[in-house]
C-alpha cells in the first residue's frame, strides 16, 4: 500500500550530512528554548517579588483558584508529554500507526487542557477576579487584583504556547500520515517534542506556585 511507503528525506543543499542537519536543528531548538526560559523567567521574577511583598494576599488569592482543576490539568499535560515521547519513539522504530495515534492522543490532551482552562477562566470572569481594570470582586487584601494580573499573564502566555503547540501537532500529523517520518528521518517530531516538553515544564512550576500556596 502506497500509504505505508516511507518517503526518503533529502538533506538540504547547504548541509554536508544528515547528522549535521539533525544536530543543527536540535541545537537551534535548544537555543530557542533557552530564550523561552528567560521569557517566562522574567514573569517568575515578577511573581517572586510580589509574593515576597504580599505573602498574605497570595494565600488569600489562591483560595479563589480550584486546585482540583489545576491538578487535573497537570496530569493531563504530563500524559501528553508521555504520548509525545512515545510518538517519537514509534517513528524511531518505524511504527507508523502508533505514531499517528500517539500524536492524536497528544493533541487530544492539549485540547482537554485548554478546555479545563476555559472553564476556569469563565469562572474567574464570572466572579470578576480579573486583572486591575476589570477586577470587581470582594477581598480582604487590597492588593488582590495584582495576583490576578500575574495569574492571567502567566497562564495566558502558557495557554498561547499550548495553542501554538497544537498547531505544530496538526502539522506533524499531516506529515506523519504522508509517511514522511521514519527511523531515518524524524527531526521535526523531535523538535516539536522538545518544545512540547518545555511547555509542560513551565506548567510544572506554575501549578504549585499559583494553586498550592500554603
Amino acid at each position, binding site marked *: 500500500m502506497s500509504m505505508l511507503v516511507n518517503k526518503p528525506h533529502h538533506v538540504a543543499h547547504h548541509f554536508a*550530512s*544528515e*547528522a549535521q542537519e*539533525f*544536530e543543527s536543528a*536540535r*541545537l537551534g531548538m*535548544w*537555543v530557542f*528554548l*533557552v530564550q523561552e*526560559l*528567560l521569557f517566562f*523567567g*522574567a514573569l517568575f*521574577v515578577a511573581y*517572586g*517579588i510580589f509574593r*515576597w*511583598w504580599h505573602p498574605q494576599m497570595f494565600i488569600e488569592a489562591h*483560595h*479563589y483558584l480550584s*486546585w482540583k482543576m489545576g*491538578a487535573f490539568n*497537570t*496530569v493531563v499535560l*504530563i*500524559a501528553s*508529554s*508521555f504520548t*509525545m*515521547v512515545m510518538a517519537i*519513539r514509534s517513528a*524511531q*522504530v518505524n511504527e507508523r500507526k502508533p505514531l499517528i495515534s500517539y500524536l492524536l492522543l497528544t493533541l487530544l490532551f492539549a485540547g482537554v487542557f485548554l478546555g479545563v482552562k476555559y472553564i476556569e477562566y469563565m469562572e474567574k470572569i464570572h*466572579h*470578576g*477576579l480579573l486583572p486591575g*481594570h476589570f*477586577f*470587581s*470582586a*470582594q*477581598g*480582604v*487584601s*487590597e492588593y*488582590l*487584583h495584582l495576583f490576578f494580573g500575574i495569574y492571567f499573564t502567566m497562564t495566558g502566555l502558557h495557554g498561547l504556547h499550548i495553542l501554538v503547540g497544537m498547531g505544530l501537532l496538526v502539522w506533524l500529523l499531516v506529515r506523519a500520515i504522508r509517511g514522511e517520518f521514519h527511523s531515518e528521518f524524524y527531526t521535526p517530531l523531535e523538535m516539536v517534542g*522538545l518544545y512540547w*516538553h518545555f511547555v*509542560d*515544564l513551565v506548567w*510544572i512550576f506554575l*501549578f*504549585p*506556585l499559583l494553586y*498550592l*500556596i*500554603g
Partner: protein
Amino acid sequence: MKNDNHASHHVIVPVKTYVAVFVALLILTFLTVFVAQFDFGSFNLLVALIVAMVKASLVVMIFMGLKWNKSFDRFAFFACLIFLFIFFLLVFVDIPLRSYRGVEESQHINLKSPVKLIAPGEAPVHH
C-alpha cells in the same frame, strides 16, 4: 548515514523507561498536592519548589533526552539557568533591602485598588 556520529545522537529509549518516568511524574504530582495540605511555615514554598524541580529534571533529562545528549545543547540549557538565577538574585538584592525611610514598609500612599474590601472573617461573595 550509519556513521558513529549518527548512532550517538539517535538513542532509542526503552518504553519501560518512559512509562517509569510517567508514573513517577504522576506520583510526584500527587505528592505536591498532598504536602500542600500541611503547613511547614516558610518551608512551604521550598518544599513545593523542590518537588517541582525533581519533576522538571525528570522531564528534561529523560523526555527531552539531555541524559543521552552530551553535546553543547546540555551546556546551553544549564548555563541559561544560571543567568535566570542571576536575574532573580540581583533583583532580590534590591527590593527586599530597600529602605522606606519614614514610612512603613511598602505602605502605599495613594493606592487606587479596585478590590472591594471586606473584613478578614467575612466570606467573600464568590465561592
